[in-house]
């Protein structure tokens, strides 16, 4: 799948949704676009001719309602599509959340990183993004002495910087090395993502986008400039594309032996 081709498809998707919202004048088939887009519950899946699957949440949560415990947001990464050398997801995260490295690999922010692996027995190489795995039983939350590390009702694991004291216990507890510590004074933060010196931070699953009915920036970029290896959705919804894929194909979580039940699944790992 070439990059341009993917971009065009994404654009087509956007246009289709726009038209469905404003016009409603279909008639070329039994199901109008409006009905198709709006009628299928929380998530609408569109399978395009090339086999690329894009998903668009049809409805966002009402702004005055809390996150629902009926939802469990998760990711599925197809490592057979994820290419070594492609860092679209990392770039998208950096741009969306406003973090940057400081030339010290041990201390740089670790919201999301690409990991290249080689199976020594067979020589098979593959590449995958690793970010906060948004566990059902997050060790970071267990060990946090102040309650700053917490899990939202919809399964998103976050750091409440208001009460984080920067002890970094969670960083040691996380088996995925998904958290990092801010060592520098920071200015010009993104309005939706306050960050500051002395606090621990990690992938938020783009919670600000999810609450607005969107998908995480990494997933969006992976489907555009990237290789379309990432899928986002509600793991609790059996009709969601992510649930169907997990029910159909062999997937794994990283370190399933720890029984943390991460919300990030990998296919082809």
């Amino acid at each position, binding site marked *: 799948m070439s990059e341009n081709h993917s971009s065009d498809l994404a654009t087509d998707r956007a246009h289709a949704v726009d038209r469905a919202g404003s016009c409603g004048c279909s008639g070329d088939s039994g199901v109008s676009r409006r009905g198709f887009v709006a009628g299928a519950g929380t998530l609408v899946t569109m399978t395009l001719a090339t086999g690329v699957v894009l998903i668009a949440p049809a409805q966002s949560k009402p702004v005055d309602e*809390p996150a629902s415990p009926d939802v469990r947001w998760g990711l599925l990464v197809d490592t057979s599509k994820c290419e070594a050398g492609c860092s679209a997801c990392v770039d998208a995260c950096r741009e969306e959340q406003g973090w940057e490295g400081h030339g010290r690999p041990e201390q740089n922010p670790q919201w999301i990183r690409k990991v290249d692996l080689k199976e020594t027995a067979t020589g098979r190489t593959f590449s995958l993004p690793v970010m906060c795995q948004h566990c059902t039983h997050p060790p970071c939350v267990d060990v946090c002495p102040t309650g700053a590390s917490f899990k939202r009702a919809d399964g998103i694991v976050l750091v409440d910087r208001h009460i984080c004291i920067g002890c970094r216990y969670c960083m040691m507890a996380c088996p995925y090395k998904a958290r990092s510590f801010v060592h520098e004074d920071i200015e010009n933060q993104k309005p*939706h993502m*306050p960050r500051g010196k002395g606090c621990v931070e990690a992938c938020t699953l783009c919670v600000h986008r999810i609450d607005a009915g969107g998908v995480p920036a990494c997933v969006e970029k992976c489907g555009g400039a990237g290789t379309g290896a990432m899928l986002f959705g509600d793991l609790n919804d059996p009709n969601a594309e992510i649930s169907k894929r997990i029910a159909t194909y062999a997937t794994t979580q990283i370190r399933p032996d720890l029984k943390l039940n991460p919300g990030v699944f990998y296919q082809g790992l």
Partner: protein
Amino acid sequence: MTGLRLVLVMVVAALFGVLPALAGDGPFPTIPKGKGGKCVEDTQFMRRNHMDLLKHQRDETMREGIRTTEHGLQGCISCHAVQGADGKPVTIKSEEHFCNACHSYAGVSPDCFACHASVPPVGASPPGAVHGQGPTP
């Protein structure tokens, strides 16, 4: 005795004369006016309670994902941005920043801006209007 009375009279006169002057003409903060003409709550109420509103909103947004924008910090920043000499909004480092105008006077150091941006984003529209930008947690 007359001398003592005179002193007393002078003290009382001084108290009545000087204290009102202190109360009225002191170095009160110059509070920049916000945009839009009307705050989300009554001005006197906001002076006393803005910190509680912010804290309440922040916990609801951060912990529960309730993203109403009425009492969010981002709204304060958008309306109360003060333009500097270069035409850009001044940051919290400036004494002219809306929050600093009072907090410097009161000797209060809010640490909101260790993490939160103290100026509206470039090309900002009101909070919540931009896709993917809910209120500040």
